[in-house]
C-alpha cells in the first residue's frame, strides 16, 4: 500500500497523473510538465512536498546534539535561519542532504528526504549526544509556493510580513496563512523566489485550496514531481539517490560550501574530507550540455575517447534553457568548463561539453 499525503484526494480531483515515488503515491504532473515548469519560472507554482520528513531536536542541549551531525554550522546560524547541510558518513559521503531550521538553541528541526527518513532517524538517534531526536514527520504537511509571484500571493493570505526585507532567503518565521498555522520558510528547490509552508496535515487541503483560489489571478498552477525535477536540474541542485549518495563525497559533489571546516567540535566525515582536499579530488560532479542530438538520462555512460569514465546522474531537456542538459561525475581532468566528452545514448556516442552552472541564468 503506497503512502499518501493529506493532499492525495485533492490531487486526484485536479486530474493529476499519480506515480509511485519512493513508496509515496505522488502527482507527477497535472497538465504538462513544461507548462508547470514555466508557471514556476514566470508566475507561481504550488507543490505538495508533504512526503518530506521532519526530525526534531528539542530541549536544553538540542543545538549541541544536532550540530555535530551536520556538515554546516548551526552555531553560527541565527535563530530564524535555515541551513542547507549534509549528513555525512565517516568517509565524507552523503547519508542525506537536509535543511536544518534553527528556531532557538533549544529547538532545531531538520527536514530530510522522504526516501531517507527512516535511515536518517536511525542514524541520528544512534549518534546524537544528550538530546535524542524525535521523528515529527507525521505532524507536518508541506507545501512549496515557488515563482516570481509567490511573495505577493502568500502576502495576500497572511498578516505576517514576508517581504525580502523582513524574511530574506533561508529565513523562516511562524504565522497564519489563510487561517492555517504555518512555519513560513523562504526556501525552495526551483531556483525561484518562494516559500515552503509547513502546516498540520489536517489543514493542508484548506491551505492548498486557498493558495490555488487566491493565486488564480497570478496564473498559479499545481505542479508535480516532473516539473520539480526539471526546475532543480536547471539549477544543478543535487537530488539524493541520483547526484549524491553514500558513494560520492561532498567535495566530489561540489558541495564544499556546506562543509564548515573550522566549526567547533568538528563534524562526522571531516577527517576523510580533509584528506581528500589535501590529496586532490579525483572526480567531480559537472554540469554539461549535449552538443549532439539526444537527451541525457540518469545512468547513461560518459565516455572519453571511447572509454567509460563516468556516468550521467541527472539529465533532461531543460524547458527554460531549451537545451539537453545533464550532470555527471567525471575525472577531475575533464571537469573544467569547456571540457568535452561523449554521452552514450542507446549505443551512440553523443558529444557533450562542460558548461558553467546553474544552467539557468536569472533574467
Amino acid at each position: 500500500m503506497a503512502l499518501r499525503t493529506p493532499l492525495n484526494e485533492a490531487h486526484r480531483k485536479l486530474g493529476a497523473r499519480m506515480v509511485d515515488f519512493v513508496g509515496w503515491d505522488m502527482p507527477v504532473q497535472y497538465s504538462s510538465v513544461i507548462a508547470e515548469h514555466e508557471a514556476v519560472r514566470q508566475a507561481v507554482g504550488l507543490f505538495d512536498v508533504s512526503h518530506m520528513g521532519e526530525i526534531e531536536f528539542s530541549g536544553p542541549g538540542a543545538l549541541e546534539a544536532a550540530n555535530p551531525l551536520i556538515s554546516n554550522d548551526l552555531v553560527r546560524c541565527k535563530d530564524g535561519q535555515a541551513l542547507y547541510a549534509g549528513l555525512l558518513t565517516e568517509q565524507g559521503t552523503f547519508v542525506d542532504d537536509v535543511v536544518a531550521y534553527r528556531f532557538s538553541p533549544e529547538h532545531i528541526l531538520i527536514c530530510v528526504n522522504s526516501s531517507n527518513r527512516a535511515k536518517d532517524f536511525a542514524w541520528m538517534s544512534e549518534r546524537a549526544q544528550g538530546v535524542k531526536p524525535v521523528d515529527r514527520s507525521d505532524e507536518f504537511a508541506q507545501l512549496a509556493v515557488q515563482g516570481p509571484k509567490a511573495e505577493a500571493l502568500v502576502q495576500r493570505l497572511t498578516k505576517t510580513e514576508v517581504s525580502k526585507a523582513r524574511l530574506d532567503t533561508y529565513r523562516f518565521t511562524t504565522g497564519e496563512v489563510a487561517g492555517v498555522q504555518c512555519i513560513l520558510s523562504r526556501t525552495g528547490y526551483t531556483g525561484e523566489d518562494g516559500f515552503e509552508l509547513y502546516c498540520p496535515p489536517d489543514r493542508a487541503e484548506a491551505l492548498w485550496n486557498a493558495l490555488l483560489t487566491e493565486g488564480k489571478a497570478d496564473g498559479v498552477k499545481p505542479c508535480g514531481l516532473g516539473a520539480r525535477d526539471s526546475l532543480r536540474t536547471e539549477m544543478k541542485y543535487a537530488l539524493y539517490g541520483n547526484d549524491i549518495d553514500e558513494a560520492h563525497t561532498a567535495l566530489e559533489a561540489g558541495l564544499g560550501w556546506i562543509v564548515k571546516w573550522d566549526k567547533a567540535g568538528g563534524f562526522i566525515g571531516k577527517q576523510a574530507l580533509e584528506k581528500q582536499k589535501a590529496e586532490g579530488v579525483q572526480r567531480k560532479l559537472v554540469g554539461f550540455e549535449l552538443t549532439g542530438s539526444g537527451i541525457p538520462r540518469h545512468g547513461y555512460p560518459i565516455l572519453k575517447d571511447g572509454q567509460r569514465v563516468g556516468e550521467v546522474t541527472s539529465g533532461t531537456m531543460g524547458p527554460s534553457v531549451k537545451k539537453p542538459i545533464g550532470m555527471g561525475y567525471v575525472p577531475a581532468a575533464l571537469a573544467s568548463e569547456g571540457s568535452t566528452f561523449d554521452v552514450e545514448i542507446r549505443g551512440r556516442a553523443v558529444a557533450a561539453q562542460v558548461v558553467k552552472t546553474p544552467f539557468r541564468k536569472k533574467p
Partner: protein
Amino acid sequence: MAENIPADLKYTQEHEWTRSKGKVIVVGVTHHAQEALGDVVYVELPKLGASLTAGKQFGVIESTKAVSELFSPLSGTVVQVNDALTGNPSIVNTDPYGEGWILEVEPSDPKQLDGLLSPQAYSDLLK
C-alpha cells in the same frame, strides 16, 4: 471512440497509426500515446532509405520523463521523415494525426496493412 481515434486510419498495439497516401503509408503515434507520454521533447528518426521491419523498433520518442521505443507497423523503406520534429517535437502533442506525423514508408508488402487494427479494435484495446 470520438475524434481521438480517427476512423480513416489503422493502428498498432503499440499505439502507432498509419494512413494510406497513394503508394506510401504515413506513420505517427496516437493521441492516446502522446497523452500517456506527456510533453514530447525529442524524436529520434531513422534515415531516409532505411529499411523497416514490421514489429521492430525504428526510432525513439522521449518525453520530459520517459523514453519510449517506436515500432514499425510495416516492413518497407523510409521515403520521408518529418524534419519539423527535430526543431519542435511538441507537435506530436498538439497535432498527433496531422503535423505531428513521424515518417512515410513505402511498404514492401502492402498486404501487411490488413493485419493492423481497425479504429474499433484499437478503441477496444484502450478500454
